[in-house]
């Protein structure tokens, strides 16, 4: 299985790449020793979003389905966790039910929505439109839940102000449960992200990943090679959307609040910008690019949120106009060029569709 870490669907390969990756991981692991726990917690915030970016990379970059619904599933995961955590209270048992319940709910929602879209032969731009509609509907719906009648048990949905006060994730540990905040949360995020990234790499280069790429390139041809194309699309959609659910749970637990604005249009556009800018066909590029954009966006937001949004929009426009395959992928290929003459390029200019 380890040999599938490298393959046609992943750009970074070879010893230099893996040494660099190990160095980055090592730096991430020792970082808390040199930083204030509060800053470590804030740094962890950036990692939270990368799960949903990787999910979009799988369904859009590998399988060719542009979903505008990452924040829809993010919202389902986040709100479900909020409700469960408020009802169940503190402790590892509540965490397990809250985390897995919320992610499962996001996955289930993706399976139902995906089933009707994919088996209803909705594809291309309409896939984006339908998923966006659901996203906006959920954001509007949650925005009007301010009244006391909108409550599940003790958990009030609170309209535009959103939910708050849910207990964060906690894990059992020697000498009592550890609440996942600041440094502890950071380490869980680093571990979770590393595992997700490596597993998705294996998946991308496996038989399954080969079929996803075939479906992206030409669904009819893929079906005529004997693959049940719609089933593969559905699995990719559920997987990618469930990862958005993971981000939602982590976000809610991290800040102990969630509002409809993390679902609505500006938020929904973000994953697409991250992944397009980075290079949607590559997991490593998505990971690196998303992280850089999040840090940049946050830095700009401190000065002016409007400026940050305008810059993000400009970056998306620049990506589509100048580097349709993504900036990080482009830079990665430049770096790899002298060493990779003999190997097949993972992508071609023909793939340069926005």
């Amino acid at each position, binding site marked *: 299985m380890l040999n599938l870490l490298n393959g046609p669907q992943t750009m970074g390969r070879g010893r230099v790449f893996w040494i660099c990756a190990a160095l980055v991981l090592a730096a991430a692991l020792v970082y808390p020793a040199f930083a204030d726990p509060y800053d470590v917690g804030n740094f962890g915030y950036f990692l939270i979003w990368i799960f949903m970016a990787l999910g979009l990379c799988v369904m859009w970059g590998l399988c060719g389905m542009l979903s505008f619904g990452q924040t829809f599933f993010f919202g389902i995961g986040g709100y479900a966790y909020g409700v469960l955590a408020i009802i169940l209270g503190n402790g590892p048992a509540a965490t397990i039910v809250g985390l897995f319940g919320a992610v499962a709910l996001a996955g289930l929602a993706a399976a139902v929505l995906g089933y009707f879209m994919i088996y209803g032969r909705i594809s291309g731009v309409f896939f984006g439109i339908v998923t966006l509609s659901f996203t906006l509907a959920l954001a509007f719906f949650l925005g009007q839940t301010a009244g006391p009648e909108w409550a599940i048990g003790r958990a009030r949905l609170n309209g535009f102000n959103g939910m708050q006060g849910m207990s964060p994730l906690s894990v059992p540990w020697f000498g009592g449960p550890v609440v996942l905040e600041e440094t502890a949360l950071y380490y869980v995020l680093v571990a979770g992200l590393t595992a997700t990234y490596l597993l998705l790499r294996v998946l991308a280069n496996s038989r399954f990943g080969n079929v996803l790429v075939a479906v992206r*390139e030409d669904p009819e*041809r893929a079906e*005529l*090679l004997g693959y049940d194309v719609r089933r593969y699309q559905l699995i990719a959609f559920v997987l990618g959307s469930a990862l958005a659910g993971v981000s939602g749970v982590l976000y809610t637990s991290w800040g102990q609040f969630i509002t409809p604005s993390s679902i609505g249009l500006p938020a929904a556009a973000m994953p697409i910008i991250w992944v397009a800018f980075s290079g949607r066909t590559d997991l490593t590029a998505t990971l690196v690019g998303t992280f850089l954009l999040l840090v940049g966006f946050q830095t700009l937001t401190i000065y002016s949120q409007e400026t940050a949004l305008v810059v993000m929009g400009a970056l998306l426009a620049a990506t589509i106009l100048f580097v349709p395959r993504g900036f990080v992928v482009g830079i990665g290929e430049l770096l790899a060029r002298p060493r990779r003459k003999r190997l*097949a390029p993972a992508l071609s200019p*023909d793939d340069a569709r926005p």
Partner: protein
Amino acid sequence: MTALLQVGRVSKTFGGFSAVSDVDLSVEEGEIHCLIGPNGAGKSTLFKLIVGTYAPTGGHIRFRGQDVTQAKPFARVQLGMSIKRQAPSVFKALPVRQNLHIALQHHTAPDRLEREEERLLELLALSADAAKLAGQLSHGQQQWLEIGMAIALKPTLLLLDEPTAGLSSEETRHTGELIKRLNAGGMTVLAVEHDMAFVRQIATAVTVMHLGRTFARGSVEEIVADPSVAEIYLGVPHAG
């Protein structure tokens, strides 16, 4: 002996236009069966009905003794059909080797994949271009690559929709030899073809379609000798 593929009174209408009506076709095991006819005769539509891209308006299709009339294309392929479509439809943005890999991984154990890839690359004379993107190949090479992908599925019935379209006469002859070699190895072939010299080279049975109907059926010699077949090709109105 029952036919490997049995098409019975199959029809397809698009709106008011009847592209294929009441067509019967049976392909016996071991044949190289060529489907010929003037443009617009309904040959490609019939192919799409056989492989399941279109659902028929009427009639039935049986393959290897099973009724596949309502089966999805992928299910028919899993049952042992494989098609090379009319315009070369390879995965242009992927390397040649990966194109074959995607087709091969169905039936090939992972440890034998690379050897099978090499074998096919050699068979298709594409070894030197294995790392190229399929879209960078010449038209003829793309046609061959797609034939390679189709045979990588180890089908019992290989469907070829104009395998020689756009090929030079040299390439056409090579393609014919390849098809005969595959047939000798036990693969039944059904091909839509325009090039009569090519049909003469490979066919063991010929069905002629005209205006959406089966017009004639027989050996190559019989078909070539049939004056009414020549008439439909030359556009002379056929009496009766």
